[in-house]
Protein backbone atom coordinates (compact mmCIF):
# COMPACT_ATOMS: atom_id res chain seq x y z
CA UNK A 1 0.00 0.00 0.00
CA UNK A 2 1.28 3.45 -0.90
CA UNK A 3 1.09 6.33 1.58
CA UNK A 4 2.17 9.91 0.97
CA UNK A 5 3.28 12.14 3.86
CA UNK A 6 4.19 15.81 3.64
CA UNK A 7 7.49 17.05 5.05
CA UNK A 8 10.16 19.66 4.36
CA UNK A 9 13.63 19.96 2.86
CA UNK A 10 15.86 23.01 3.02
CA UNK A 11 18.81 24.37 1.12
CA UNK A 12 20.17 27.12 3.27
CA UNK A 13 17.17 29.18 4.36
CA UNK A 14 15.13 28.18 1.31
CA UNK A 15 12.53 25.56 2.17
CA UNK A 16 10.68 23.19 -0.06
CA UNK A 17 7.87 20.66 0.22
CA UNK A 18 8.99 17.06 0.31
CA UNK A 19 6.57 14.24 -0.28
CA UNK A 20 7.63 11.17 1.65
CA UNK A 21 6.21 8.25 -0.31
CA UNK A 22 6.14 5.01 1.63
CA UNK A 23 5.29 1.76 -0.11
CA UNK A 24 4.88 -1.48 1.82
CA UNK A 25 4.68 -4.26 -0.78
CA UNK A 26 3.33 -7.74 -0.10
CA UNK A 27 5.45 -9.26 -2.83
CA UNK A 28 9.20 -9.25 -3.11
CA UNK A 29 12.13 -9.97 -0.84
CA UNK A 30 11.76 -8.16 2.51
CA UNK A 31 13.92 -5.09 2.92
CA UNK A 32 13.94 -1.41 3.70
CA UNK A 33 15.28 1.09 1.20
CA UNK A 34 15.25 4.88 0.98
CA UNK A 35 15.70 6.69 -2.33
CA UNK A 36 15.45 10.32 -3.36
CA UNK A 37 18.92 11.87 -3.00
CA UNK A 38 19.09 11.07 0.69
CA UNK A 39 22.22 11.91 2.67
CA UNK A 40 24.00 9.76 5.21
CA UNK A 41 21.84 10.83 8.15
CA UNK A 42 18.72 9.98 6.15
CA UNK A 43 20.16 6.53 5.39
CA UNK A 44 20.35 5.94 9.14
CA UNK A 45 16.64 6.75 9.41
CA UNK A 46 15.97 3.08 8.56
CA UNK A 47 17.51 1.76 11.75
CA UNK A 48 15.90 4.39 13.98
CA UNK A 49 12.43 3.95 12.48
CA UNK A 50 12.55 0.18 12.65
CA UNK A 51 13.65 0.08 16.27
CA UNK A 52 11.32 2.87 17.35
CA UNK A 53 8.29 1.13 15.83
CA UNK A 54 9.21 -2.18 17.45
CA UNK A 55 9.75 -0.47 20.82
CA UNK A 56 6.33 1.18 20.51
CA UNK A 57 4.80 -2.35 20.64
CA UNK A 58 3.89 -2.33 16.97
CA UNK A 59 4.96 -5.22 14.80
CA UNK A 60 7.37 -4.14 12.10
CA UNK A 61 6.21 -5.60 8.78
CA UNK A 62 8.36 -8.27 7.13
CA UNK A 63 7.82 -6.87 3.67
CA UNK A 64 9.53 -4.89 0.97
CA UNK A 65 9.43 -1.26 2.15
CA UNK A 66 10.43 1.43 -0.30
CA UNK A 67 10.61 5.07 0.71
CA UNK A 68 10.94 7.83 -1.86
CA UNK A 69 11.63 11.43 -0.96
CA UNK A 70 10.18 13.50 -3.80
CA UNK A 71 11.29 15.69 -5.54
CA UNK A 72 14.24 13.37 -6.06
CA UNK A 73 16.59 16.04 -7.40
CA UNK A 74 16.71 18.06 -4.17
CA UNK A 75 19.39 16.89 -1.74
CA UNK A 76 18.01 15.93 1.65
CA UNK A 77 19.91 15.70 4.86
CA UNK A 78 19.15 15.60 8.53
CA UNK A 79 17.22 13.32 10.79
CA UNK A 80 13.84 15.02 10.46
CA UNK A 81 12.43 12.41 8.06
CA UNK A 82 12.25 9.80 10.83
CA UNK A 83 8.73 10.82 11.85
CA UNK A 84 7.17 10.99 8.36
CA UNK A 85 8.71 7.62 7.41
CA UNK A 86 7.49 5.98 10.62
CA UNK A 87 3.99 7.44 10.20
CA UNK A 88 3.95 6.28 6.58
CA UNK A 89 4.85 2.71 7.50
CA UNK A 90 2.32 2.56 10.35
CA UNK A 91 -0.40 3.97 8.11
CA UNK A 92 0.48 1.48 5.35
CA UNK A 93 0.09 -1.50 7.67
CA UNK A 94 -3.15 -0.11 9.06
CA UNK A 95 -1.96 0.74 12.56
CA UNK A 96 -3.35 4.27 12.24
CA UNK A 97 -5.75 6.18 10.03
CA UNK A 98 -4.38 9.35 8.53
CA UNK A 99 -6.81 12.27 8.38
CA UNK A 100 -7.84 13.84 5.10
CA UNK A 101 -6.47 17.34 5.93
CA UNK A 102 -2.94 17.98 4.83
CA UNK A 103 -0.37 18.04 7.61
CA UNK A 104 3.38 18.31 7.90
CA UNK A 105 5.34 15.71 9.88
CA UNK A 106 8.84 16.53 11.00
CA UNK A 107 11.10 15.18 13.71
CA UNK A 108 13.89 12.87 14.76
CA UNK A 109 13.01 9.60 16.49
CA UNK A 110 14.71 8.12 19.47
CA UNK A 111 15.10 4.35 19.60
CA UNK A 112 12.42 4.12 22.30
CA UNK A 113 9.85 5.78 20.04
CA UNK A 114 9.97 9.25 21.59
CA UNK A 115 10.91 12.35 19.62
CA UNK A 116 14.10 14.38 19.94
CA UNK A 117 14.55 18.12 19.61
CA UNK A 118 14.96 18.72 15.87
CA UNK A 119 16.46 21.73 14.15
CA UNK A 120 14.47 23.69 11.59
CA UNK A 121 10.98 23.51 13.12
CA UNK A 122 10.64 27.29 12.90
CA UNK A 123 11.31 27.10 9.15
CA UNK A 124 8.67 24.38 8.87
CA UNK A 125 6.09 26.59 10.55
CA UNK A 126 6.87 29.42 8.12
CA UNK A 127 6.54 27.00 5.19
CA UNK A 128 3.20 25.72 6.51
CA UNK A 129 1.89 29.27 6.76
CA UNK A 130 3.07 30.05 3.26
CA UNK A 131 1.55 26.87 1.79
CA UNK A 132 -1.71 27.26 3.68
CA UNK A 133 -1.33 23.92 5.46
CA UNK A 134 -3.09 24.11 8.82
CA UNK A 135 -1.53 21.35 10.88
CA UNK A 136 2.04 20.49 11.76
CA UNK A 137 3.24 17.62 13.93
CA UNK A 138 6.63 18.26 15.53
CA UNK A 139 8.59 17.06 18.58
CA UNK A 140 7.36 18.62 21.83
CA UNK A 141 10.82 19.93 22.63
CA UNK A 142 10.87 21.97 19.41
CA UNK A 143 7.20 22.93 19.25
CA UNK A 144 7.65 26.27 21.03
CA UNK A 145 9.62 27.55 18.06
CA UNK A 146 6.58 27.12 15.83
CA UNK A 147 4.01 28.46 18.28
CA UNK A 148 4.83 32.09 17.44
CA UNK A 149 3.60 31.68 13.87
CA UNK A 150 -0.03 32.62 13.51
CA UNK A 151 -2.86 30.65 11.90
CA UNK A 152 -1.40 27.17 12.14
CA UNK A 153 -2.07 24.36 14.60
CA UNK A 154 1.13 23.09 16.19
CA UNK A 155 0.76 19.59 17.62
CA UNK A 156 3.54 18.74 20.08
CA UNK A 157 4.30 15.03 19.82
CA UNK A 158 5.85 13.08 22.69
CA UNK A 159 6.21 9.68 21.09
CA UNK A 160 4.84 7.39 18.41
CA UNK A 161 2.32 5.79 20.73
CA UNK A 162 0.64 9.10 21.55
CA UNK A 163 0.46 9.89 17.84
CA UNK A 164 -1.19 6.53 17.13
CA UNK A 165 -3.77 7.22 19.86
CA UNK A 166 -4.36 10.69 18.40
CA UNK A 167 -5.10 9.44 14.90
CA UNK A 168 -7.21 6.55 16.09
CA UNK A 169 -9.35 8.95 18.10
CA UNK A 170 -8.45 7.49 21.51
CA UNK A 171 -6.68 10.46 23.02
CA UNK A 172 -6.21 13.72 21.16
CA UNK A 173 -3.06 15.79 21.36
CA UNK A 174 -3.83 19.38 22.33
CA UNK A 175 -2.39 21.88 19.86
CA UNK A 176 -0.15 24.53 21.45
CA UNK A 177 -1.67 27.89 22.26
CA UNK A 178 -0.36 30.60 19.92
CA UNK A 179 2.12 32.90 21.64
CA UNK A 180 2.26 36.64 21.23
CA UNK A 181 5.68 37.61 19.92
CA UNK A 182 5.81 41.01 21.61
CA UNK A 183 5.22 39.40 25.00
CA UNK A 184 8.27 37.16 24.73
CA UNK A 185 10.54 40.03 23.81
CA UNK A 186 10.79 41.52 27.25
CA UNK A 187 13.88 42.96 28.86
CA UNK A 188 16.77 40.78 29.86
CA UNK A 189 19.33 41.94 32.39
CA UNK A 190 22.92 42.13 31.13
CA UNK A 191 25.58 39.86 32.63
CA UNK A 192 28.33 42.47 32.42
CA UNK A 193 27.88 46.15 33.31
CA UNK A 194 29.44 49.25 31.80
CA UNK A 195 29.87 50.79 35.24
CA UNK A 196 32.48 48.10 35.93
CA UNK A 197 34.71 49.52 33.22
CA UNK A 198 36.64 52.41 34.75
CA UNK A 199 37.59 55.46 32.74
CA UNK A 200 37.62 55.17 28.95
CA UNK A 201 34.85 57.75 28.59
CA UNK A 202 35.52 58.34 24.91
CA UNK A 203 35.42 54.62 24.18
CA UNK A 204 32.12 54.25 26.00
CA UNK A 205 30.62 57.11 24.03
CA UNK A 206 31.80 55.58 20.76
CA UNK A 207 30.36 52.19 21.68
CA UNK A 208 27.07 53.87 22.53
CA UNK A 209 26.94 55.49 19.10
CA UNK A 210 27.88 52.20 17.46
CA UNK A 211 25.15 50.30 19.30
CA UNK A 212 22.55 52.99 18.62
CA UNK A 213 23.07 52.95 14.86
CA UNK A 214 24.55 49.49 14.30
CA UNK A 215 27.85 50.93 13.07
CA UNK A 216 31.10 49.04 12.79
CA UNK A 217 33.75 49.96 15.29
CA UNK A 218 37.46 49.33 15.58
CA UNK A 219 39.39 49.66 18.83
CA UNK A 220 43.15 49.86 19.00
CA UNK A 221 45.14 49.98 22.19
CA UNK A 222 47.89 48.42 24.27
CA UNK A 223 47.27 45.09 26.04
CA UNK A 224 45.27 45.36 29.23
CA UNK A 225 43.63 48.67 28.40
CA UNK A 226 40.15 47.15 28.49
CA UNK A 227 39.26 46.59 24.85
CA UNK A 228 37.91 43.11 25.40
CA UNK A 229 36.07 44.14 28.54
CA UNK A 230 34.43 47.05 26.73
CA UNK A 231 33.33 44.82 23.88
CA UNK A 232 31.89 42.19 26.22
CA UNK A 233 30.04 44.86 28.21
CA UNK A 234 28.57 46.01 24.94
CA UNK A 235 26.30 42.95 24.87
CA UNK A 236 24.43 44.62 27.75
CA UNK A 237 23.69 47.91 25.97
CA UNK A 238 22.51 46.49 22.69
CA UNK A 239 19.00 47.67 21.86
CA UNK A 240 16.11 45.22 22.23
CA UNK A 241 15.32 43.10 19.23
CA UNK A 242 12.22 44.20 17.39
CA UNK A 243 9.60 41.66 16.41
CA UNK A 244 10.69 41.55 12.77
CA UNK A 245 14.36 41.27 13.67
CA UNK A 246 13.71 38.50 16.13
CA UNK A 247 11.96 36.45 13.46
CA UNK A 248 14.93 36.90 11.12
CA UNK A 249 17.42 35.81 13.76
CA UNK A 250 15.28 32.88 14.90
CA UNK A 251 15.19 31.59 11.33
CA UNK A 252 18.98 31.28 11.25
CA UNK A 253 19.22 29.87 14.77
CA UNK A 254 16.53 27.28 14.11
CA UNK A 255 18.32 26.19 10.94
CA UNK A 256 21.63 25.71 12.73
CA UNK A 257 20.07 24.03 15.76
CA UNK A 258 21.18 26.81 18.10
CA UNK A 259 17.82 27.07 19.81
CA UNK A 260 17.88 25.02 23.03
CA UNK A 261 15.22 22.30 23.56
CA UNK A 262 11.98 23.94 24.66
CA UNK A 263 13.21 27.33 23.46
CA UNK A 264 11.17 29.73 21.41
CA UNK A 265 12.15 32.98 19.67
CA UNK A 266 15.64 34.43 20.02
CA UNK A 267 15.09 37.34 22.37
CA UNK A 268 18.51 38.81 22.74
CA UNK A 269 20.68 40.34 20.07
CA UNK A 270 23.33 37.80 19.15
CA UNK A 271 26.84 38.51 20.38
CA UNK A 272 29.37 36.26 18.68
CA UNK A 273 33.03 36.27 19.56
CA UNK A 274 34.76 33.61 17.44
CA UNK A 275 38.39 32.80 18.23
CA UNK A 276 40.98 34.05 15.77
CA UNK A 277 41.80 30.53 14.60
CA UNK A 278 38.29 30.24 13.12
CA UNK A 279 38.48 29.11 9.50
CA UNK A 280 37.17 31.16 6.64
CA UNK A 281 34.26 28.73 6.21
CA UNK A 282 33.48 28.93 9.91
CA UNK A 283 33.37 32.69 9.70
CA UNK A 284 31.63 33.27 6.39
CA UNK A 285 29.67 30.04 6.03
CA UNK A 286 30.00 27.24 3.51
CA UNK A 287 30.68 23.50 3.27
CA UNK A 288 29.24 21.41 0.45
CA UNK A 289 25.76 21.67 1.92
CA UNK A 290 26.00 25.39 2.70
CA UNK A 291 25.65 26.29 6.35
CA UNK A 292 25.65 29.77 7.89
CA UNK A 293 28.89 30.99 9.45
CA UNK A 294 29.61 33.28 12.38
CA UNK A 295 28.72 36.40 10.40
CA UNK A 296 25.21 35.07 9.80
CA UNK A 297 24.86 33.87 13.37
CA UNK A 298 25.70 37.47 14.33
CA UNK A 299 22.89 38.76 12.07
CA UNK A 300 21.20 41.77 13.74
CA UNK A 301 23.78 41.54 16.49
CA UNK A 302 27.47 41.94 17.15
CA UNK A 303 30.40 40.09 15.64
CA UNK A 304 33.33 40.69 17.96
CA UNK A 305 36.72 39.89 16.48
CA UNK A 306 39.29 40.18 19.23
CA UNK A 307 42.96 40.28 18.15
CA UNK A 308 41.78 41.25 14.68
CA UNK A 309 45.18 41.03 12.88
CA UNK A 310 45.66 37.47 14.17
CA UNK A 311 42.78 36.25 12.01
CA UNK A 312 43.76 34.68 8.72
CA UNK A 313 44.17 37.15 5.93
CA UNK A 314 41.62 35.28 3.81
CA UNK A 315 39.06 35.38 6.61
CA UNK A 316 39.45 39.12 7.09
CA UNK A 317 39.27 39.97 3.41
CA UNK A 318 36.24 37.71 2.96
CA UNK A 319 34.36 40.05 5.29
CA UNK A 320 34.45 42.82 2.68
CA UNK A 321 31.37 41.91 0.68
CA UNK A 322 29.08 41.00 3.61
CA UNK A 323 30.11 44.16 5.47
CA UNK A 324 28.91 46.22 2.54
CA UNK A 325 25.86 44.26 1.41
CA UNK A 326 24.49 42.83 4.63
CA UNK A 327 24.23 39.33 3.18
CA UNK A 328 26.54 36.64 1.92
CA UNK A 329 26.03 34.52 -1.15
CA UNK A 330 27.63 31.07 -1.01
CA UNK A 331 27.85 29.04 -4.20
CA UNK A 332 28.61 25.35 -4.03
CA UNK A 333 27.98 22.32 -6.21
CA UNK A 334 24.57 21.85 -4.58
CA UNK A 335 23.48 25.33 -5.47
CA UNK A 336 23.73 28.93 -4.49
CA UNK A 337 22.55 30.02 -1.06
CA UNK A 338 22.11 33.47 0.39
CA UNK A 339 22.38 34.03 4.13
CA UNK A 340 21.64 37.37 5.77
CA UNK A 341 24.65 38.90 7.53
CA UNK A 342 23.58 42.32 8.71
CA UNK A 343 25.94 42.45 11.65
CA UNK A 344 27.83 45.08 13.53
CA UNK A 345 31.55 44.46 13.45
CA UNK A 346 33.45 45.18 16.64
CA UNK A 347 37.16 44.60 16.11
CA UNK A 348 39.97 45.04 18.59
CA UNK A 349 43.68 44.99 18.04
CA UNK A 350 47.04 46.05 19.45
CA UNK A 351 48.92 48.74 17.58
CA UNK A 352 51.95 46.46 17.01
CA UNK A 353 53.12 42.91 17.89
CA UNK A 354 54.52 43.95 21.29
CA UNK A 355 51.52 46.14 21.90
CA UNK A 356 53.15 49.31 23.16
CA UNK A 357 53.54 51.44 20.06
CA UNK A 358 52.63 55.00 21.00
CA UNK A 359 52.47 54.18 24.72
CA UNK A 360 53.92 57.11 26.69
CA UNK A 361 55.22 54.89 29.50
CA UNK A 362 56.52 51.76 27.82
CA UNK A 363 58.89 51.47 24.95
CA UNK A 364 57.90 49.61 21.81
CA UNK A 365 60.33 46.82 20.99
CA UNK A 366 59.15 46.08 17.46
CA UNK A 367 61.13 46.77 14.32
CA UNK A 368 59.66 48.95 11.63
CA UNK A 369 59.25 45.93 9.40
CA UNK A 370 57.32 44.03 12.09
CA UNK A 371 54.97 46.92 12.64
CA UNK A 372 54.41 47.31 8.93
CA UNK A 373 53.64 43.62 8.56
CA UNK A 374 51.25 43.65 11.51
CA UNK A 375 49.30 46.66 10.32
CA UNK A 376 49.22 45.39 6.75
CA UNK A 377 46.72 42.76 7.93
CA UNK A 378 44.22 45.53 8.54
CA UNK A 379 43.84 46.38 4.86
CA UNK A 380 42.51 49.65 3.50
CA UNK A 381 39.26 48.23 2.07
CA UNK A 382 38.36 46.67 5.43
CA UNK A 383 39.27 49.75 7.46
CA UNK A 384 37.30 51.90 5.02
CA UNK A 385 34.16 49.93 5.92
CA UNK A 386 34.57 50.64 9.60
CA UNK A 387 32.78 53.80 10.71
CA UNK A 388 34.26 54.42 14.11
CA UNK A 389 37.98 54.20 14.75
CA UNK A 390 38.95 54.40 18.32
CA UNK A 391 42.15 54.52 20.30
CA UNK A 392 41.83 52.97 23.73
CA UNK A 393 44.75 54.28 25.79
CA UNK A 394 46.32 52.39 28.68
CA UNK A 395 44.69 53.14 32.04
CA UNK A 396 46.75 54.47 34.91
CA UNK A 397 46.74 51.61 37.40
CA UNK A 398 47.03 54.06 40.31
CA UNK A 399 43.42 55.02 39.66
CA UNK A 400 42.31 51.42 39.87
CA UNK A 401 43.89 50.49 43.23
CA UNK A 402 41.48 48.50 45.33
CA UNK A 403 41.75 50.77 48.37
CA UNK A 404 40.88 53.86 46.34
CA UNK A 405 37.42 55.30 46.27
CA UNK A 406 35.96 54.60 42.90
CA UNK A 407 33.94 56.94 40.76
CA UNK A 408 31.69 54.40 39.18
CA UNK A 409 30.57 55.07 35.64
CA UNK A 410 27.16 55.11 34.13
CA UNK A 411 25.14 51.90 34.41
CA UNK A 412 24.47 49.84 31.30
CA UNK A 413 20.72 50.12 31.87
CA UNK A 414 20.82 53.92 31.58
CA UNK A 415 22.89 53.79 28.44
CA UNK A 416 20.57 51.18 27.00
CA UNK A 417 17.59 53.45 27.62
CA UNK A 418 19.12 56.17 25.46
CA UNK A 419 20.00 53.64 22.80
CA UNK A 420 16.51 52.18 22.76
CA UNK A 421 15.08 55.66 22.29
CA UNK A 422 17.42 56.34 19.39
CA UNK A 423 16.42 53.00 17.87
CA UNK A 424 12.77 53.86 18.25
CA UNK A 425 13.30 57.01 16.19
CA UNK A 426 15.04 54.89 13.58
CA UNK A 427 12.38 52.19 13.33
CA UNK A 428 9.77 54.94 13.01
CA UNK A 429 11.84 56.45 10.20
CA UNK A 430 12.28 53.16 8.31
CA UNK A 431 8.91 51.59 8.99
CA UNK A 432 7.98 51.56 5.30
CA UNK A 433 11.22 49.87 4.24
CA UNK A 434 11.42 46.11 4.54
CA UNK A 435 15.01 45.17 5.34
CA UNK A 436 16.21 48.39 6.90
CA UNK A 437 16.10 48.66 10.66
CA UNK A 438 18.91 51.00 11.66
CA UNK A 439 20.93 53.89 10.27
CA UNK A 440 23.79 51.67 9.19
CA UNK A 441 21.42 49.59 7.03
CA UNK A 442 20.53 52.63 4.94
CA UNK A 443 21.46 52.51 1.29
CA UNK A 444 23.07 55.61 -0.19
CA UNK A 445 19.86 56.43 -2.04
CA UNK A 446 18.01 56.79 1.26
CA UNK A 447 20.37 59.41 2.64
CA UNK A 448 18.81 62.30 0.75
CA UNK A 449 15.43 61.60 2.28
CA UNK A 450 16.38 60.54 5.78
CA UNK A 451 19.63 62.36 6.60
CA UNK A 452 19.07 66.07 6.16
CA UNK A 453 22.17 68.14 6.90
CA UNK A 454 22.15 71.74 8.03
CA UNK A 455 24.12 74.13 5.76
CA UNK A 456 26.87 74.47 8.31
CA UNK A 457 27.17 70.72 8.68
CA UNK A 458 27.30 70.29 4.92
CA UNK A 459 30.13 72.81 4.66
CA UNK A 460 32.15 71.08 7.38
CA UNK A 461 31.66 67.75 5.68
CA UNK A 462 32.89 69.14 2.35
CA UNK A 463 35.99 70.60 3.96
CA UNK A 464 36.73 67.36 5.78
CA UNK A 465 36.39 65.26 2.65
CA UNK A 466 38.89 67.48 0.83
CA UNK A 467 41.32 67.86 3.71
CA UNK A 468 41.53 64.16 4.63
CA UNK A 469 40.84 62.93 1.08
CA UNK A 470 38.10 60.57 2.25
CA UNK A 471 36.68 57.95 -0.09
CA UNK A 472 33.15 58.11 -1.43
CA UNK A 473 32.20 55.25 0.87
CA UNK A 474 33.68 57.07 3.86
CA UNK A 475 31.66 60.14 2.96
CA UNK A 476 28.37 58.26 3.01
CA UNK A 477 29.28 56.35 6.13
CA UNK A 478 30.16 59.62 7.84
CA UNK A 479 26.68 60.91 7.15
CA UNK A 480 25.15 57.74 8.60
CA UNK A 481 27.14 58.04 11.81
CA UNK A 482 26.21 61.73 12.05
CA UNK A 483 22.59 60.67 11.66
CA UNK A 484 22.93 58.34 14.63
CA UNK A 485 24.60 60.98 16.78
CA UNK A 486 21.78 63.35 15.91
CA UNK A 487 19.26 60.65 16.84
CA UNK A 488 20.90 60.22 20.23
CA UNK A 489 20.58 63.99 20.56
CA UNK A 490 16.91 63.73 19.42
CA UNK A 491 17.62 66.19 16.66
CA UNK A 492 15.73 65.92 13.38
CA UNK A 493 18.37 67.73 11.36
CA UNK A 494 22.06 66.83 11.44
CA UNK A 495 23.91 69.80 12.87
CA UNK A 496 27.51 70.87 12.62
CA UNK A 497 28.65 69.41 15.93
CA UNK A 498 27.09 66.04 15.09
CA UNK A 499 29.23 65.85 11.99
CA UNK A 500 32.24 67.08 13.96
CA UNK A 501 31.88 64.25 16.45
CA UNK A 502 31.46 61.68 13.69
CA UNK A 503 34.59 63.05 12.01
CA UNK A 504 36.64 62.63 15.12
CA UNK A 505 36.00 58.87 15.02
CA UNK A 506 36.51 58.67 11.30
CA UNK A 507 39.98 60.04 10.91
CA UNK A 508 42.56 57.48 11.88
CA UNK A 509 45.51 58.78 13.83
CA UNK A 510 48.78 58.42 12.00
CA UNK A 511 51.52 56.87 14.07
Amino acid at each position, binding site marked *: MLIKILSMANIGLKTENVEVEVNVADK*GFPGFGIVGLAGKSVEETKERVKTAIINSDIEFPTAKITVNLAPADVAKDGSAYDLPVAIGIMAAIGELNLPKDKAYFYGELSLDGSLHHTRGVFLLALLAKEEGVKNIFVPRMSANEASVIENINVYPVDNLKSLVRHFNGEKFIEPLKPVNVAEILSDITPEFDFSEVLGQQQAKRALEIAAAGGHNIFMMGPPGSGKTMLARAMAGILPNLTEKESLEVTKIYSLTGNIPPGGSLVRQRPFRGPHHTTSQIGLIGGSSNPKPGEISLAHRGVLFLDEFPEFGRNSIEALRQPLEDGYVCISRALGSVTFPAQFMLVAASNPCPCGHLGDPKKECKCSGYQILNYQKKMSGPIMDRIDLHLTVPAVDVNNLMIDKEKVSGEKSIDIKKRINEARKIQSERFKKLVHIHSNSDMKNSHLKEFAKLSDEANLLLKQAVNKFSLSARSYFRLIKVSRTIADLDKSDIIKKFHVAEALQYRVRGEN
Partner: protein
Amino acid sequence: MYKKENYNKGKGGEEMAREFLLKKGFELVESNYENVIGEIDLIMIDKDFLVFIEVKLKIGDRFGIPEDMIDKRKLSKVKRVAESYLVLEKKKVKKFKKYRIDAVCIVLNQDQTIQRITHYENIY
Protein backbone atom coordinates in the same frame (compact mmCIF):
# COMPACT_ATOMS: atom_id res chain seq x y z
CA MET B 1 32.97 -28.90 16.30
CA TYR B 2 30.24 -26.28 16.18
CA LYS B 3 31.15 -25.41 12.60
CA LYS B 4 30.51 -28.99 11.55
CA GLU B 5 27.15 -28.89 13.27
CA ASN B 6 26.15 -25.69 11.47
CA TYR B 7 27.37 -27.13 8.20
CA ASN B 8 25.13 -30.17 8.57
CA LYS B 9 22.21 -27.97 9.51
CA GLY B 10 22.78 -25.96 6.35
CA LYS B 11 22.91 -29.14 4.28
CA GLY B 12 19.56 -30.14 5.74
CA GLY B 13 18.13 -26.75 4.77
CA GLU B 14 19.34 -27.14 1.22
CA GLU B 15 17.65 -30.51 0.96
CA MET B 16 14.37 -29.11 2.23
CA ALA B 17 14.57 -26.23 -0.24
CA ARG B 18 15.35 -28.61 -3.11
CA GLU B 19 12.37 -30.83 -2.33
CA PHE B 20 10.15 -27.75 -1.99
CA LEU B 21 11.21 -26.32 -5.35
CA LEU B 22 11.10 -29.66 -7.16
CA LYS B 23 7.48 -29.92 -6.08
CA LYS B 24 6.91 -26.44 -7.53
CA GLY B 25 8.11 -27.71 -10.90
CA PHE B 26 11.76 -26.62 -10.86
CA GLU B 27 14.44 -28.86 -12.38
CA LEU B 28 17.71 -29.46 -10.57
CA VAL B 29 20.93 -28.54 -12.34
CA GLU B 30 23.43 -28.51 -9.55
CA SER B 31 23.43 -28.79 -5.80
CA ASN B 32 26.08 -27.09 -3.73
CA TYR B 33 28.11 -25.73 -6.61
CA GLU B 34 31.57 -24.56 -5.59
CA ASN B 35 34.45 -22.82 -7.33
CA VAL B 36 37.35 -20.55 -6.30
CA ILE B 37 35.10 -17.54 -5.89
CA GLY B 38 32.54 -19.13 -3.61
CA GLU B 39 29.54 -21.39 -3.59
CA ILE B 40 25.90 -21.43 -4.60
CA ASP B 41 23.45 -23.58 -2.67
CA LEU B 42 21.22 -24.60 -5.57
CA ILE B 43 21.16 -24.04 -9.30
CA MET B 44 17.83 -24.97 -10.89
CA ILE B 45 15.72 -24.42 -13.97
CA ASP B 46 12.36 -22.66 -13.83
CA LYS B 47 10.77 -22.70 -17.30
CA ASP B 48 13.22 -20.70 -19.44
CA PHE B 49 15.12 -19.25 -16.49
CA LEU B 50 18.36 -20.53 -15.03
CA VAL B 51 17.92 -19.81 -11.32
CA PHE B 52 20.64 -19.42 -8.70
CA ILE B 53 19.23 -20.02 -5.26
CA GLU B 54 20.49 -18.95 -1.85
CA VAL B 55 19.05 -20.98 1.02
CA LYS B 56 18.85 -19.68 4.60
CA LEU B 57 17.77 -21.70 7.56
CA LYS B 58 17.07 -20.61 11.11
CA ILE B 59 15.97 -22.56 14.10
CA GLY B 60 13.57 -20.54 16.21
CA ASP B 61 13.44 -16.73 16.06
CA ARG B 62 15.88 -15.96 18.85
CA PHE B 63 18.46 -14.61 16.43
CA GLY B 64 16.17 -12.85 13.97
CA ILE B 65 14.58 -13.98 10.76
CA PRO B 66 16.55 -15.63 7.91
CA GLU B 67 15.63 -12.74 5.58
CA ASP B 68 17.80 -10.42 7.66
CA MET B 69 20.81 -12.62 6.96
CA ILE B 70 20.69 -11.99 3.21
CA ASP B 71 22.12 -8.51 2.84
CA LYS B 72 23.64 -6.58 -0.03
CA ARG B 73 27.05 -8.12 0.55
CA LYS B 74 25.75 -11.68 0.44
CA LEU B 75 23.74 -10.91 -2.67
CA SER B 76 26.68 -9.49 -4.56
CA LYS B 77 28.71 -12.54 -3.55
CA VAL B 78 26.05 -14.84 -4.99
CA LYS B 79 25.95 -12.72 -8.12
CA ARG B 80 29.71 -12.98 -8.60
CA VAL B 81 29.71 -16.74 -8.23
CA ALA B 82 26.75 -16.95 -10.61
CA GLU B 83 28.59 -14.89 -13.21
CA SER B 84 31.67 -17.06 -12.90
CA TYR B 85 29.45 -20.11 -13.34
CA LEU B 86 28.09 -18.66 -16.56
CA VAL B 87 31.63 -18.21 -17.84
CA LEU B 88 33.08 -21.52 -16.64
CA GLU B 89 30.18 -23.78 -17.64
CA LYS B 90 29.43 -22.34 -21.07
CA LYS B 91 28.19 -25.66 -22.46
CA LYS B 92 25.62 -26.17 -19.74
CA VAL B 93 24.18 -22.69 -19.86
CA LYS B 94 24.17 -22.25 -23.63
CA LYS B 95 20.46 -22.83 -24.04
CA PHE B 96 19.46 -20.24 -21.39
CA LYS B 97 18.99 -16.57 -22.20
CA LYS B 98 17.55 -15.49 -18.86
CA TYR B 99 19.02 -15.81 -15.37
CA ARG B 100 17.67 -15.01 -11.93
CA ILE B 101 18.67 -15.07 -8.28
CA ASP B 102 16.11 -16.44 -5.80
CA ALA B 103 16.13 -17.02 -2.07
CA VAL B 104 14.49 -19.70 0.03
CA CYS B 105 14.10 -18.90 3.72
CA ILE B 106 13.28 -21.70 6.15
CA VAL B 107 12.34 -21.35 9.79
CA LEU B 108 12.34 -24.50 11.92
CA ASN B 109 10.78 -25.10 15.29
CA GLN B 110 12.99 -26.33 18.10
CA ASP B 111 11.88 -29.91 17.37
CA GLN B 112 13.17 -29.67 13.75
CA THR B 113 9.69 -29.45 12.20
CA ILE B 114 9.15 -26.79 9.56
CA GLN B 115 7.51 -23.60 10.82
CA ARG B 116 7.55 -21.86 7.44
CA ILE B 117 9.31 -22.07 4.14
CA THR B 118 9.22 -19.01 1.88
CA HIS B 119 10.43 -18.65 -1.67
CA TYR B 120 11.35 -15.19 -3.00
CA GLU B 121 11.80 -14.73 -6.72
CA ASN B 122 14.28 -12.37 -8.35
CA ILE B 123 15.70 -10.72 -5.26
CA TYR B 124 18.71 -8.99 -6.76
